[in-house]
């Protein structure tokens, strides 16, 4: 399991209902089901990964964040998880709204566009920055809605979501040491991880 998935798993209480949007090969839901006794389910777009998950006995449906969340009833899960995908969905604000309609808590991770390397490259090079995290050129990137940690916090404020926990992590998912300052986290955190709830 990736380190950031372990951080996500640590945010989730045992024996709760979890929906993982973009569940990939089912690693996180498999862990939550087998180790935490959660009723963990997945949505995945890549059919090969869906088949692999179901063949491992995990409940996964073929679908995506933009088109399938509307079909889930209100309050049907305790946690709705979206890993490293918010920047790639068509309507991030609507996806967040759906997540907090379906779940009591939303757990969201995304790559931080405010990282110093990105800022520096844009400033000095004048071109769209390319880094280990942002590694596809602008004309073929699926990341159509990049945002910074501060942008994300502003959206949470506007839409009335309460940030229960947040973490900045580096690409490998190691916890970054800027827990107290959002400014520093926004400069030095490669990824951000948020636990949100409705007001």
């Amino acid at each position, binding site marked *: 399991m990736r380190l950031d998935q372990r951080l996500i798993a640590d945010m989730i209480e045992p024996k709760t209902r979890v929906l993982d949007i973009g569940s990939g090969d089912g690693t996180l839901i498999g862990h939550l089901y087998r180790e935490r006794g959660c009723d963990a389910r997945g949505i995945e777009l890549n059919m090969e990964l869906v088949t692999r998950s179901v063949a491992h006995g995990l409940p996964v449906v*073929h679908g995506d964040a933009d088109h399938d969340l509307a079909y889930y009833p209100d309050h049907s899960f305790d946690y709705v998880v979206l890993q490293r995908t918010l920047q790639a969905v068509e309507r991030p604000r609507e996806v967040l709204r759906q997540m907090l309609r379906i779940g009591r808590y939303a757990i969201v991770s995304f790559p931080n566009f405010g990282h110093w390397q990105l800022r520096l490259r844009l400033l000095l090079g004048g071109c769209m920055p390319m880094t280990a995290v942002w590694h596809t050129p602008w004309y073929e990137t699926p990341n159509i809605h990049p945002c910074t940690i501060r942008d994300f916090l502003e959206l949470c404020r506007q839409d009335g979501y309460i940030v229960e926990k947040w973490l900045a992590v580096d690409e490998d998912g190691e916890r970054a040491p800027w827990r107290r300052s959002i400014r520093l986290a926004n400069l030095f955190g490669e990824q951000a991880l948020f636990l949100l709830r409705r007001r």
Partner: protein
Amino acid sequence: MNSTTPLTVGEHPHASFPEGVELDCGVTLAPVDIAYCTYGQLSANKDNAILICHAFTGDQYVAETHPLTGKPGWWERMVGPGKPIDTNRFFVICSNVLGGCMGSTGPRSPRTDGQEAPGELWGTAFPPITIRDMVRAQHKLVRSLGIERLFAVVGGSMGGMQVLEWAVTYPQMMRAVMPIATAPFHSAQNIAFNEVGRQAIIADPDWRGGRYWEAGVVPARGLAVARMMAHITYLSEEVLTRKFGRRMRRGPVGGQGPEGPVSTFGDIFEVESYLRYQGSSFVRRFDANSYLSITRAMDWFDIAADHDGDLTPAFAGTAVRFCVVSFSSDWLFPTSAARTLARALNRAAANVSFVEIETDKGHDAFLLEEPDFDRTVRGFLCGVAEHAGLF
């Protein structure tokens, strides 16, 4: 179509229910026989039984050589020791549907409504049946085997309709269901195909108003045409092209070589020859009036109909685990129908998996070699067993 003599065999193993089955049409059909096969051992706790529901023209001989046709069981690939539905672990039951012609009560059974002439068969007087009626009869069979709760109900195509009907009618009776290559209602296009098949049978002079048995004949022409047409819908353009293309074969009429006189029906395409073979072998094992009864039952199938057209309330509060499977080139029961079902199940907060298997083999893919499908079936059933703490 040289031989149209129906194949016959001694009695099929069956259970008898003298009290009969109350049908959706209001009639009580009695007595009722349900022919069935079982594989594997029922566990001491009676918690390892899987009911397999067969497709339209299938029957109970799921994993053994068919006593009439001598062909392997229709799902031997899937069911057996060490197979995805593993009979070393599971007790598998498969019954011939009500209205069928392989030993269960159907149009070819003796008429029993009090208006019968001596020796008369039901024929077209057989009461109209529904998919739910078939499921009611299966329910009786399962209970008569001493099983309170099934481990799973699994089936493809019309078998998948029965699976869905089980989940809606007896939601406490199983842990899991696998509706495969199916839909929550029969589409207008599918009703249209069924109607062409029925009209072909009815238009055959040998059908004789449904009383063909009196003259010792069967409407072989009409039944074969119905089968040929239906068989096309079970395939796909890609698979027809791959298997037959535009290749010709020497026709049965005359014997013209390449230099012989041109004849409209001399040489035929291989695909024609294949369909003719499918048609002629079918008429020997299937009853024309069963064809009419069962296609009608499929046409009426609509899970949402009892809930003002909304599918979700039909599954509200269900604790059953669902695994919906579709096949990418299936245009008879397309993935869009499976997705409608999966979304309705999500709305009902059901535990659902939904997989589309990539294949060019069309609707019939669920009966054929598809490794991803095998893995899905095996994995889903193992997951349910793990969740239930079995094995």
